[in-house]
């Protein structure tokens, strides 16, 4: 073997080692969290924290779910997330259809109107929204979160769905019209089914954004019984965090479980969807 090939083999090995190192740094903390969530309280004091769990102590999950009220928070998150996802999908597909396929004077302006919200820092809307919800008696209700989530979900969703719809041939719509469809059935029966790829991407991406929200939930919700998973987790950490390590890890695990499941099932779609704004931008 010549010196040169030995050298390039070494370099390639070195690259592999570094790749593994990067992956370990990304994965190990999550693995550690999951392992710690099944440790008994005693293990945290007796064993070093990198030690593997001695058994499967699932009482942590029961504690987090009931005493720690993660069950309630989970339900609240699920309701607000799902309802706002439904609204986001309905509204952004119909707007996109009008923006891309229909003909009207202000459609260019309307598109930039919706796009302008893509990078707005959310802090700027907090005081006005808080004031409005207070006046409308919507603080501490699901609606305060659903309306806000929907409004903030629209910009990126309209961007993703309208770029996708642009690639659908106009002839399809013409054919449907000739067959006697109304504009509404063209939308429901032709355009929506054909845009399913983009719609699924929007659902998944928006699920992460809404499920992971903390700032809106902590601003509009003060009653413990109405908190969502993320603000509930903060509350839980304050109340229990330093004492009951097993339960806090279980609570974190409960908080990331839907994310884990969705990402595990649809990771390619998630990655492509989330980077789409940057790559195509």
């Amino acid at each position, binding site marked *: 073997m010549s010196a040169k090939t030995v050298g390039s083999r070494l370099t390639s090995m070195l690259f592999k080692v570094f790749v593994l190192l990067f992956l370990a740094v990304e994965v190990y903390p999550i693995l550690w969290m999951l392992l710690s969530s099944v440790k008994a309280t005693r293990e945290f004091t007796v064993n070093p924290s990198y030690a593997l769990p001695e058994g499967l102590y699932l009482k942590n999950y029961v504690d987090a779910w009931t005493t720690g009220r993660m069950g309630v928070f989970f339900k609240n998150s699920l309701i607000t997330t799902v309802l706002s996802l439904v609204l986001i999908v309905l509204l952004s597909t119909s707007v996109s259809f009008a923006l891309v396929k229909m003909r009207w004077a202000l459609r260019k302006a309307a598109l930039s109107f919706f796009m302008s*919200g893509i990078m707005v*820092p959310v*802090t700027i809307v907090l005081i006005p929204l808080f004031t409005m919800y207070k006046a409308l008696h919507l603080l501490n209700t699901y609606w305060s979160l659903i309306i806000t989530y929907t*409004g903030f979900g*629209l910009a990126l969703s309209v961007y993703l769905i309208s770029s996708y719809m642009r690639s659908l041939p106009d002839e399809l719509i013409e054919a449907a019209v000739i067959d006697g469809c109304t504009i509404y059935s063209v939308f429901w029966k032709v355009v929506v089914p054909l845009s399913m790829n983009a719609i699924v991407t929007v659902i998944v991406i928006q699920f992460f954004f809404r499920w992971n929200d903390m700032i809106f939930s902590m601003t509009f919700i003060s009653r413990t019984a109405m908190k969502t998973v993320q603000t509930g987790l903060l509350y839980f950490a304050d109340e229990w965090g330093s004492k009951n390590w097993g339960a*806090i*890890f279980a609570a974190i695990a409960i908080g990331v479980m839907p994310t884990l499941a969705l990402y595990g099932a649809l990771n390619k779609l998630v990655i492509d969807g989330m980077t789409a704004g940057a790559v195509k931008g």
Partner: protein
Amino acid sequence: MERFLRDKKAILVFVLPAALIYLFAVFVPILWSAYYSLFSGLPGINFKFTGLSNYAKMWGDRIFLTAFAMNIEYVGVVVAGQVGLGLVCSLLFMFGIRRYKTTVRTIVFFPVVLPVVAVAQLFTKIFEISPNYGLFNSLLVLLGLKDLVQPWLGQSASAFFVLCSMDIWTAMGFYAIIFYAALMDIPTEIIEAARIDGANGLRLLRHILLPALRPITLTCLVFSFTGTLKVFESALALTRGGPGTATKTLSMYMYDSSFLHSQYGYGSSIAVFILVECIVISGAINGLFGRRKY
């Protein structure tokens, strides 16, 4: 057909509901904040028109200035870390792996989708010192570095370091995947041709790869800058801004002014300031280094 696609009533049905919610939740509040920023006090109680004096007041406010300085330092470290390590990571993937590309992509992107609060709680426990050592301190003991064991989140400098590493850890994969996709888009003939001409390693990187990555780098910088300028959730969930005000960001100070001290006018002016920062920075990156359409 024309008549069909110009149906005014249908257009209204399709556009109006979304436009209303968007106006209500996003657009009007932005203008409203800009308007509030010209007042002092709390609406209905001691609200008084004061013109631009809130914006002048900031520069004499010690807490604002500390938060602003901390924010700038944070942005510098985290943008460099996210985009820089993302780039390094993508280059390692390009040269280091032949098989399992999809698996590697999936793993490295994973932290991006995790909830910030969960990640922050996880990092709190990793860097914990009492009642028992967290992961980091116990690994230090394992490696025989017992002297380095310390309350990482209880000291200003190290708490700042933990916050930065957490936000780099979460977002690095996002940039790695974007850079990796852009690297894969470079035609192999170009890289082969450069290799035949004797360009290897660093020279290949400097003369072929980096120039080709320039547009996507600008995009990444805009993303990273606007993401880090408004930092709020991660700092709040990790340290509550502490110890003291060591990790208190501008957004957190805005939140405190508004909801803790009931200064809606002053809080709004800080929020407007953050928005202007984001616009100026993205404008500057695009204006100075190239254009980019959105």
